[in-house]
């Protein structure tokens, strides 16, 4: 295919604004699939992907579209939708020349619409604004058009579509061909191909999604990863139409899949550049960043004998999830488990849920922690991704914590309560922009740990769910951080320790102690619950000793009832963790996350 007839583009949108259904409609209109075959949301359909032999999410589809006798190759590249995966999003965008910015006709512009738009602009993409779901009764095309105008689009350039009825799709395809530039690579230069996604397939090993920028790659070539210098033989190349088709080569401007008997997804880095071992490119495509976890938590199996199962589950997940990290960790309270690292909170939740659902292992996850930097008195720098690694206070000179720049998108009625929330969260106001008369974007700098704690829930509750937000890491700042321990009956429960800002330690400690008091049942003796920084107790509650736990009346010799009751009580104890002499229900370990004040 000549490059002039290739269009590489992606669809970017806020969650639920109809990205997947719009993609389906494009597939249908280009004849890649007919209506009969079309299952809803083709690009997301796991079943179909299984049939193709690819397990999940390899979503670059090559479509063929003929107009005025001229055949075009359209490569539609899917992007993950969430902020946790923004680096992956940015690599997908880097594989394109254009993007469709999809906005829901009823919801309008949202935080992720903007975040994705800025990412696309950073990658110098040509943007086609699309208002989707115009069939909705609540659609307000005028208003949404104005919003798009306010973020820099020409009203006349906006395409209105209904992925449901198919309205506007042909116009959209025409616009893609007319507006989005064709790739401008050089087939004769040394190979440069961008890896923008990868997944593990049990038969073929790692499959990479690549965009060839310059040169040609053929089956049988020996390729080299420019970041890791690893070399592999190209075993196969394919495209997805959306049926997988084997091909012999991919040349400049094209998008496809490459597999090369790569055993582990750890050997392939999204963002890396593939070149040929012979006649390699001089420099890699820029923009590569190794993925680093930003949030850590301990994961422990509720049943101690499931530790090995948990290890297996994490290993299996890691095959397809290069960003997940884990290493064994031991807690006095929870036994054997793993310290796991994630790209963000959503990533953490996804992994937790998959372990519980797909592998049937019940987990206790400890409070998530961000990665702190600690400067010791002797000048050494320590990376602290778990409260247990926090050095003793007397050795610490300075502490630093990661900050994010946060954009909150909200109807103007909630500005006041949002600013209050951000102040509460140690935020620094940057600026506020009016998108139109009704809606604003507020920018704040916030410590990441505050976002990890309960920011999202509070944001939603103080704006009745109307605000959306997005954030990006901006680096480390000095902060007065301390490790707060929780003691039960005088004994530190390691799994409950957290790192907090000194000014917030007292209130946080108080909340946790109060919550634990509600959760921990009375025992045969009084149980003091204390929050402490070092030796210094900052909050205390007491679980009073059990006073009455007795079955009085014996109804007409029916003693079976008593036995049943005791057995039930005994069963209940199985769901408790014994910490020293104190029996602690599992919910206690979640209480540290509790936000009720």
């Amino acid at each position: 295919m000549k490059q002039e007839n290739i269009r590489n583009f992606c669809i970017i949108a806020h969650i639920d604004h109809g990205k997947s259904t719009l993609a389906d409609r494009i597939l249908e209109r280009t004849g890649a699939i007919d209506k009969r075959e079309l299952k809803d949301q083709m690009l997301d359909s796991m079943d179909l992907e299984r049939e193709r032999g690819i397990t999940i999410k390899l979503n670059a589809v090559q479509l063929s579209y003929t107009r005025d006798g001229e055949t075009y190759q359209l490569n539609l590249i899917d992007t993950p939708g969430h902020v946790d995966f923004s680096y992956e999003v940015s690599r997908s965008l880097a594989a394109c020349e254009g993007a469709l910015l999809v906005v829901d006709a009823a919801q309008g512009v949202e935080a992720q619409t903007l975040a994705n738009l800025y990412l696309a602009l950073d990658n110098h993409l040509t943007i086609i604004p699309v208002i989707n779901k115009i069939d909705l009764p609540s659609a307000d095309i005028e208003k949404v058009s104005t919003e798009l105008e306010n973020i820099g689009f020409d009203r006349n350039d906006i395409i209105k579509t209904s992925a449901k009825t198919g309205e506007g799709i042909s116009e959209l395809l025409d616009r893609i061909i007319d507006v989005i530039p064709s790739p401008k690579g050089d087939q004769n230069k040394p190979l440069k191909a961008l890896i923008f996604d990868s997944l593990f397939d049990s038969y073929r090993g790692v499959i990479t999604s690549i965009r060839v920028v310059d040169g040609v790659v053929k089956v049988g070539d020996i390729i080299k990863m420019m970041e890791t210098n690893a070399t592999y033989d190209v075993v196969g190349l394919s495209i997805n139409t959306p049926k997988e088709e084997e091909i012999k080569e991919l040349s400049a401007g094209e998008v496809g899949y490459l597999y090369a008997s790569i055993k582990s997804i750890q050997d392939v880095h999204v963002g890396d550049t593939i070149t040929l071992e012979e006649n390699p490119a001089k420099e890699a495509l820029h923009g590569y960043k190794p993925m680093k976890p930003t949030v850590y938590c301990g994961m422990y199996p509720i049943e101690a004998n499931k530790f090995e199962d948990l290890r297996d589950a994490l290993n299996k997940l890691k095959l397809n999830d290069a960003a997940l990290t884990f290493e064994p960790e031991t807690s006095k309270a929870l036994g054997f488990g793993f310290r796991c690292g994630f790209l963000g909170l959503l990533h953490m939740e996804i992994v937790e849920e998959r372990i519980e659902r797909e592998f049937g292992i019940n987990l206790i996850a400890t409070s998530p922690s961000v990665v702190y930097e600690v400067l010791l008195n002797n000048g050494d720098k320590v990376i602290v991704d778990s409260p247990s690694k926090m050095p003793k206070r007397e050795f610490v000179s300075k502490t630093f914590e990661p900050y994010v720049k946060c954009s909150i998108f909200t109807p103007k009625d909630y500005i006041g309560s949002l600013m209050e929330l951000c102040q509460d969260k140690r935020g620094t106001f940057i600026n506020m922009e009016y998108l139109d008369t009704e809606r604003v974007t507020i920018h704040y700098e916030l410590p990441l740990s505050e976002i990890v704690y309960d920011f999202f829930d509070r944001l939603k509750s103080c704006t009745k769910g109307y605000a959306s937000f997005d954030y990006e890491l901006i680096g480390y700042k000095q902060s007065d951080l301390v490790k707060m321990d929780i003691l039960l009956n005088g004994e530190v429960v390691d799994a409950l320790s957290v790192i907090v800002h000194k000014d917030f330690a007292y209130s946080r400690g108080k909340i946790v102690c109060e919550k634990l008091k509600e959760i921990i049942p009375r025992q045969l003796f009084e149980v003091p619950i204390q929050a402490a920084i070092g030796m210094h107790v900052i909050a205390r509650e007491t679980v009073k000793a059990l006073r009455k736990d007795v079955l009085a009346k014996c109804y007409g010799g029916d003693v079976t009832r008593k036995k049943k009751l005791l057995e039930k009580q005994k069963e209940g104890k199985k769901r408790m963790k014994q910490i020293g002499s104190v029996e602690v229900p599992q919910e206690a370990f979640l209480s540290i996350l509790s936000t009720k004040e």
Partner: protein
Amino acid sequence: MIKSCYVHIPFCKKICSYCDFCKLIYHKKFINSYLDALEKEIDSKYQGEVLDTLYIGGGTPTCLSYEELERLLKILSKLKLSKDIEYTIEGNVDSITIEKLELLKTYGINRLSIGVETTNLRFLQLLNRTLDQEKCRTLVDYARSIGIHNINFDLIYAIPGENIDDLEKDLDFILSLFPEHISTYSLIIEENTILGIKDTKNISEELDYEMYLSICKRLKENGYIHYEISNFSKPGYESKHNLCYWKNGEYYGFGLGSSSYIHKKRITNTRSITRYKEGIVLAEEELSLDDEIEYEVILGLRLLKGIDLRLFEEKYHHSLSYYYDVDQLIEEGYLQLNNHYLSIPEDKIYVSNEILVKILQNRK
């Protein structure tokens, strides 16, 4: 060898708001057919053992009319009684009469258990009960005059709204009648009772415990022995019938909803009167050795004196510590050894469930 027998009379004129037991509103037309069924049950199960204790409980057995009561007692006279039988009937002040007392005496009843529960008008209303204190005195005096010398009062405490002073007044009244035996129950609000449905809340655990302590103190000062979690008696007047339960002895249970423990089987009769009349039993549980031992422990430790370890070993061929690891609990003071008895210390007996569960968890 079975030496005890319980007979259930489920009828009541009024339903108490806390009652979770098997009970029916008294209707004249039910009684004779019920007694027929009861007689049939006794005929089919009773093997002619000589009984040491016979207990007619309810419901309110004394709510039967004189004639119905006489018929019941006649049916029960088929049971062979030992010379020193403890023969108890439960009743309330409302329904007991001088005539009924004489009838009871004639048929050998020598122990009377009267549900006083509370003397406070407000609480009586809450419990949907009545109490004529003067009539109570007269009945007790009369019972004693005709030779019924063993009298028990039931007392309920920890009623919502009750305080220590209210409790003391109840105790004043009960003690003024010099009963041989007193059973005290902290009010339990069960789900399927009037109180439960009204979502009545219990008093605080602290106040409940305080009340329990003052009952123990007051009764001890007045010469009563605290021999079981909720039972007190003058020396020699411990309820032999209840001791049979706590010592894990076998017993017959006749009547609607009653329980038997016969030849290592725990049998619970149906609570449905129609099904009962058809002779249907609800549940039969054949006990494994493990079950038996568990019962032995959870029942025996209700007694302040505790479990006789020598008897235990005789019965189960191994010492108790062969089955359960109790050393640590003894060390921590939740159990104590006294001669050859293992017991829960008196100051811990009010949290005995928690301790029992700990023992059961330590099954070797």
